């Protein structure tokens, strides 16, 4: 085990997979000579050269399409979006082409591709650079959606995503790149897609959180333990699609209460989906209505105080847990 940042864990995963399979290549804006806009690809161009690590023009639809075609013809592209906000320009290639190719070709052409980059808010970057888009991509059959919340998960999940034979939407979080954790150094360390992880065990209330809201939920759980002696379990699905609803439902059957925390907007969100699936599978176990904390239904404001107000927070999570526990 080594302690490293999420940024370095992702970098290590990319490096190991570049070494492992010569059909893997990385393409995106500023990924090569610039070392990556957020330094996730630092050093890779120097080590692997122009063929394997490729600076693309600012042409998201174009290089997403190029990735889809390259995957169809036998390569395993890792396409970096400088942020997922820009993937909206490439949505036609991701949704209409990558997601549907296997099905509409009757199983002839699978698309082994990873689209990755930071998702959600950063630090005061305002409306067009602060969107959490997982619900949009998770809505389409044919895509897998992955959102790690710590360095070990980031590495293990990214390696699995690159080895997966399907298009994988891999969503990181800019605010989290510097967060450190223990990471196994074994080159064959992977974490299977579609398996949730209980980040903290508890008995009285379940919080389902993902990406940036996991550390928030863990902090809230600590405080609630101290202040109210309530034991909170934190479940991180890690993969949004396929969703490991069983792990979440088992937790709810134990705690009888559920709070869902997410950085995306609430309308038609992944939290809404989890809420529905829990109603389907664990309705009789619920002792309180499910509560959701999401980003406010507004484009992201720039002003620091307004931005903080729009986003989920530890305090909002504590308030929600109190509500479902009738405290």
């Amino acid at each position, binding site marked *: 085990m080594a302690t490293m940042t999420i940024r370095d864990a992702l970098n290590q995963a990319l490096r190991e997979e570049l070494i492992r399979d010569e*059909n893997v*290549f990385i393409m995106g804006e500023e990924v090569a000579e610039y070392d990556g806009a957020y330094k996730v690809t630092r050093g890779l161009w120097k080590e692997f050269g122009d*063929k394997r690590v490729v600076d*693309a*023009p600012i*042409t998201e*639809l*174009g*290089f*997403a*399409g*190029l*990735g*889809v*075609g*390259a*995957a*169809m*013809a*036998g*390569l395993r*592209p890792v396409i970096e979006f400088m942020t997922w906000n820009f993937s909206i320009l490439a949505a*036609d*290639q991701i949704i*209409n*082409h990558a997601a549907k*190719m*296997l*099905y*509409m*070709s*009757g*199983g*002839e*052409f*699978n698309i*082994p591709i990873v689209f990755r980059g930071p998702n959600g808010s950063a630090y005061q970057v305002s409306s067009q650079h602060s969107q959490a888009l997982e619900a949009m991509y998770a809505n389409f*059959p*044919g895509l*897998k959606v992955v959102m790690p919340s710590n360095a070990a998960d980031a590495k293990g999940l990214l390696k699995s995503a690159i080895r997966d*034979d*399907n298009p994988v939407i891999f969503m990181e979080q800019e605010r989290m790149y510097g967060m450190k954790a223990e990471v196994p150094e074994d080159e064959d360390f992977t974490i299977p897609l579609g398996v949730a992880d209980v980040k903290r065990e508890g008995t009285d209330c379940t919080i389902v959180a993902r990406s940036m809201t996991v550390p928030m939920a863990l902090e809230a759980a600590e405080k609630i333990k101290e202040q109210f002696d309530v034991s909170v379990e934190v479940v991180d699905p890690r993969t949004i699609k396929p969703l490991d609803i069983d792990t979440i439902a088992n937790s709810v059957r134990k705690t009888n209460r559920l709070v869902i925390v997410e950085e995306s907007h609430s309308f038609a969100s992944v939290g809404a989906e989890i809420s529905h699936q829990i109603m389907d599978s664990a309705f009789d176990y619920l002792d309180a209505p499910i509560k959701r904390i999401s980003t406010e239904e507004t484009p992201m404001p720039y002003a620091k105080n307004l931005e903080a107000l729009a986003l989920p927070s530890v305090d909002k999570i504590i308030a929600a847990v109190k509500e479902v526990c009738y405290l």
Partner: protein
Amino acid sequence: MPKAATSRKPEKRANLSSPKTTKKAAPKPEKVDSSTFLDVEEAIREYEDRKASQLKAIKKVDKETLREMLYQMVLGRHFEEKCAEVYRMGKIGGFCHLYIGQEAIAIGTMLSLNKDDMVITSYRDHVQAMVKGLSPESVMAELYGREGGCVKGKGGSMHMFSKEHHFYGGHGIVGGQIGVGTGMAYAAKYKRTGQVVLCFFGEAAVNQGIFHESLNMAELWGLPVIYICENNRYGMGTSQKRAMSARSIAKKAESYEMANEFVDGMDVMAVRGATRRAVERARNESKPTLLEIRAYRYMGHSMSDPGNYRTREEILKYQERDPIILFKDSLKEAKVLNEKDFDEIEQRAVEATASALKFADESPYPSESELLTDVLA
């Protein structure tokens, strides 16, 4: 039309008689150039001129290949006419975009490829799929939405695919396949396979961002791809004149310093010649080319298109410069075939289409368990 030299009951056939107008002395046509929109009168005047150049090109190609080219064109025509017929009977559902009038493009381009060269196209894909090697049976069964279809009834008219034949589809979003085709060429170069990519699209796709984004990357990175714009003059019901500020599509390549050529899509030999030059450039120099091949779509955009945006007269005049009739006349004049040979070719096409229809009719619907397969690999 002479009767087929067989006892089989002849099917209703396309009108492939030579035009009477071709015997007239035609005034010297102006040079065909993509910078002007060709009007109908000019198009007809071109006929004799085109035939002269076609005759020259024919001499350099073996008879077997020439006959096969004609057969594929006639098959494409019969197949698509049957599609229209069975569509009207309700046997084909959804969208159905026919290729009638554009046959010289698929045949002229694809018959000079290596077997493992890759092809990708738009939703107007039935004929391209067959020329690339998919059986008429598997294409028709796909149109019928049956288990025997090339993609098991999951794609339909717009989504023919075959890995075996290196046919990468059949894509439904205008221009989307231009990005994908660029990536296929990227993979060929990356893996040094020596394959080239033919990437087809209509002229309306040229207004999409993906066209420009792809051409830029292809030239920048030297990708072995031939972009083939099948300019059939209409993006659905909107003529090129009403949709594009620039007249020449071929010249758009110059913005990317890419090789380009304007090609007469009524002349299968001209299409063949231009494609072979581009394929050579792609294979030997790893450089892309944009070909603008001008054709004319006789039918509506899809089967549901009433065609109110153009006159019957316009279509009829174009039909007088039909690429199949021209090629047949040239081959006869070059003594590559006679009328009897042509009858045999037609009969083969009629039989292949009949066999495809029979296969499709008899193929079962996909099993209900297929609904949920092939979502993820």
